[in-house]
């Protein structure tokens, strides 16, 4: 079989992404039709920059969702004779049902670069937003009281935040993933015959993963204590769900055996949350200081609302504009950070198809063929660009209101 020409490669790639195109078309059509009713999200479609950003992000989100049908080969599948092959090389010895080409060529272990890029999107799109979300939970839960109460609370918390910010990030990562540090600590027997080490990363995870549960509990308690029935349902729901996820993520010991977290992944995750949350903390603190001078906060105070109700229901919703913008930007930073970590070999296991690791793998053999490094690099760039454009669009539109 002949190798594919550039045009043919493009054609095949476009065809592989068919579910993504259909999904984007449907979502855009629906969003534009209902844009007058959907608030800030709807206004995004008034801004060309915002739309472009949203399109790029949506492209990768849908790619991650439909990854199974887009991938032409499995992420770890190797084929003989495909090492460092140029894009469009036909697969030697392919069977009738198989996809006949390596669209973006093969890498140093003769794996399909195209499929690995698609599989990588799944990992990146799960880790980056979740880590950012956790960082926001931590930052918000600490930033609101610091801004609202001020005084000593603020002094102590801000000092801690500055301490974390003042420590070199890469060094921190190296420390957190060093085998010695990861092993240091006593082993504790936990349920299900599993053990847990009280190492620094594990302890950090135990603390940081508590924040979302605490956050949600306070959120519901402060608002719905006037309706005990509803409050009880919500609180019990949060506790059950929280305990389940906490046991799975923190201790890797989900009693149901569904959730779990690879120790490598946990390290990365904890580190990213840990370095991101002080920045979020500062933003939230500033916003809380500003918004607490508003009359509606005074109105809540004068009717005797508790401080957490005021922080979470009067201040936080009205700080959402800048926070959403920062969230988008921060997913971008986190994606880059994950890439950087992967590049330094600090990230996930070397065979993982995530973009940072694949760039690192590809880099070593750059002189033989550029594609194994170039393709994930472009993917990473386009997604971060999309997030930045989306954030710009959101900022532009939220200022207009």
């Amino acid at each position: 079989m002949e190798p594919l020409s550039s045009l043919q490669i493009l054609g095949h790639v476009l065809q592989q992404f068919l579910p993504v195109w259909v999904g984007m078309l449907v979502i855009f059509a629906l969003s534009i039709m209902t844009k007058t009713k959907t608030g800030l999200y709807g206004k995004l479609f008034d801004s060309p920059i915002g739309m472009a950003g949203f399109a790029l992000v949506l492209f990768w989100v849908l790619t991650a969702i439909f990854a199974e049908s887009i991938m032409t080969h499995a992420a770890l599948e190797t084929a003989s004779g495909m090492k460092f092959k140029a894009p469009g090389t036909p697969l030697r010895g392919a069977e009738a049902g198989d996809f006949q080409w390596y669209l973006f060529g093969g890498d140093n272990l003769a794996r399909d670069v195209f499929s690995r890029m698609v599989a990588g999107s799944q990992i990146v799109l799960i880790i980056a937003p979740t880590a950012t979300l956790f960082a926001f939970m931590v930052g918000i839960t600490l930033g609101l009281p610091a801004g609202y109460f001020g005084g000593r609370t603020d002094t102590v918390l801000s000092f801690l935040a500055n301490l974390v910010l003042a420590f070199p990030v890469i060094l921190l990562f190296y420390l957190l993933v060093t085998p010695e540090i990861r092993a240091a600590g006593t082993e504790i027997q936990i349920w299900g015959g599993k053990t847990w080490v009280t190492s620094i990363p594990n302890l950090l995870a135990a603390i940081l993963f508590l924040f979302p549960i605490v956050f949600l509990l306070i959120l519901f308690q402060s608002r719905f204590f006037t309706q005990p029935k509803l409050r009880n349902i919500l609180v019990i729901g949060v506790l059950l769900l929280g305990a389940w996820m906490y046991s799975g993520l923190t201790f890797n010991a989900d009693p149901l055996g569904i959730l779990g977290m690879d120790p490598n992944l946990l390290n990365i995750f904890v580190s990213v949350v840990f370095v991101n949350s002080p920045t979020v903390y500062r933003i939230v603190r500033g916003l809380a200081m500003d918004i607490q001078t508003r009359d509606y906060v005074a109105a809540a105070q004068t009717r005797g609302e508790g401080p957490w109700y005021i922080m979470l229901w009067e201040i936080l919703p009205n700080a959402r504009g800048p926070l959403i913008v920062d969230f988008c930007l921060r997913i971008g930073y986190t994606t880059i950070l994950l890439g950087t970590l992967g590049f330094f070999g600090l990230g996930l296991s070397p065979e993982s198809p995530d973009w940072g690791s694949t760039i690192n793998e590809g880099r070593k053999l750059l002189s033989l063929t550029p594609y194994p490094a170039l393709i994930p690099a472009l993917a990473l760039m386009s997604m971060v660009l999309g997030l930045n454009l989306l954030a710009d669009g959101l900022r532009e539109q939220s200022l207009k209101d």
Partner: protein
Amino acid sequence: MAKWDYDGPILEIENLSISFFTRAGEIPAVMDFSTTVMPGEAMGLVGESGCGKSTVALGVMQDLGKNGEIVGGTIKFKGRNLNEMSEEELRDLRGSEIAMIYQEPMASLNPAMRIGQQLMEVPIIHEGVSKAVAREMAIEVVTDVKLPDPERILDSYPHQLSGGQQQRIVIAMALMSKPSLLILDEPTTALDVTVEAGIVDLVKGLGEKYGTSMLFISHNLGLVLDTCDRLCVMYSGEAVETGSIEDVFDKMRHPYTQALFRSIPLPGADKNAAPLVAIPGNFPLPHERPSGCNFGPRCDYFEKGRCNKGQIMMDPVEGGGRDRHESRCLKVREIDWKAPLVAGDNSARTEPGKVVLKVDNLKKYYEVAANAIFGGGDVRVVKANETLSFEARESETLAIVGESGCGKSTLAKVLMGLETATDGTVTLNGDNIENLPIEGRDTKTVSSIQMVFQNPFDTLNPSMTVGSQIIRALEIFKVGNTPADRRQRMLELLDLVKLPRAFADRMPRQLSGGQKQRVGIARAFAGSAQIVVADEPVSALDVSVQAAVTDLLMEIQRENKTTLLFISHDLSIVRYLADRVMVMYLGHVVEMGTTEEVFSPPYHPYTEALLSAVPIADTSVQKKRIVLDGDIPSAMNPPSGCPFQTRCNHKVNVPNNLCETEVPPMRDLAGSQQIKCHLAQNWLDQMEPVIKIAAE
């Protein structure tokens, strides 16, 4: 650039139309606007927010931004069409021939430059003079705007000056180039009344001295009466009436002007006998203007099929005025303009009942540490409230009057429990609450004393529906047992404040300022409040809406026998609705008594100045002009002795320098009046009324 001489009108605007182009399409902001300003003349532009008055000013400056565009008509300055000038010619003109003064003085000054440099820049750029000459000119102008110690002022940075001084500097900067036309866009709105009076005096004097023509933009009719020769009333993008001050104020010929005058509290208005008449309905949004007359839907004289057909033109008023008096009304000849106002519902005066709130010797001091982070250092004490004593009775309105920094907001905070008192007692229904912070108060106490806030755009949480905010208050006050109960009660509260029930599901941004303020009132009454502290509840609203909100408050008060503590700096509205008045200055109560007693002599010298400073939109009122020197001292650093002694005009009449050494005691005068002043009785007896209504 050489200034050219021109004898004709300084500014001629003919059929000006300005539109803003947004994604939603063209939005006309000003339509068919014509006016002429003669040399030395002061022209007032009056209207509510959104009526296009500032857009006209920006049009004259040719500074409409990238969305705005002049779509018709001409603006001629000294006979030359500004629309046809190049960008370069315009730049020469701005700041040298036409100068503009904005509302917020701090925003017009560069915070990183000394005042002197900023002033000197003007002649250096426009006239190319040397630095020394420019400095001479700067000193001269700063002296002209009556600032003390010009040399020191020139060497200071903007933040070192008070708001009033900053605005004087902005005016000085505008005068540096001796402009032919000065545009003032609400120049005093951000200032206190007594400071405003000084600025108004200054502007008037300068107009006479420099012969500058002025375009004075304001929403305050009283201020326009004080400063201008002619005025133009605008409504929804159109001029509706224009003419000399006397013609428009006394022989108004447009229903909107008439309605506007009927909705502002002039001396003689009374909440029981002669209530204000609010203009029904709402100001139309620019893209929802009706066809025909814009004021039609809100007009009492509206005639279907005539007023809503076609464009209505400005027409000279026959017989009404001598001096270019024009009105945009089809029925101007048919309406009987002298017909007396059909009296609204008169209501019986409600008698105050038992004492609900008693404040005795209340003190509130704040300690300000010099070093906030680590503590220590000098501790300074700010005396926000100093020995306040008063009582408030059931269904009584007690007005608390004072300018910024007088301690009225601190008093409100102590009453609400957001702060605890340093000394003294506050008794609510016989229970002491001065040391009970809000967390420590039971639901009944909290719900029985509630507050209405000043800024309508800030009073509601922007991310919650109107209904859920009221329901939340009901939940907290433990009103109703089920969500359905509370929803029902919430709808009743909306009825109470005369809002449609459909508003329950709206977001605050979909409501106008007046409607938001009504929701704020509904929320305050959610727990059947006994006492409502209203902190300037209408001062941020448009004139025509103020009357409606004030009336609503009065009506609810009458029905529920609520005690209203009405905090305000606007003496006109205080005179209209208060039963008793308490005047505060720098944390002290300086005068207290019934409304009649406080508004007639003898006065405390501060009350006298305050009364004189409030602009009144009535040509038959003659005021004694008392302008105070300087600004309100800072509460961080109050003067020794009497708090008012630094600005008092009567200080010379007190022997032995008593004012500077001793705080005067509270003295009882005739009736229930009390004042805090050293003036001897014979001086008090000699005082003349500040406001006299000329016999008609």
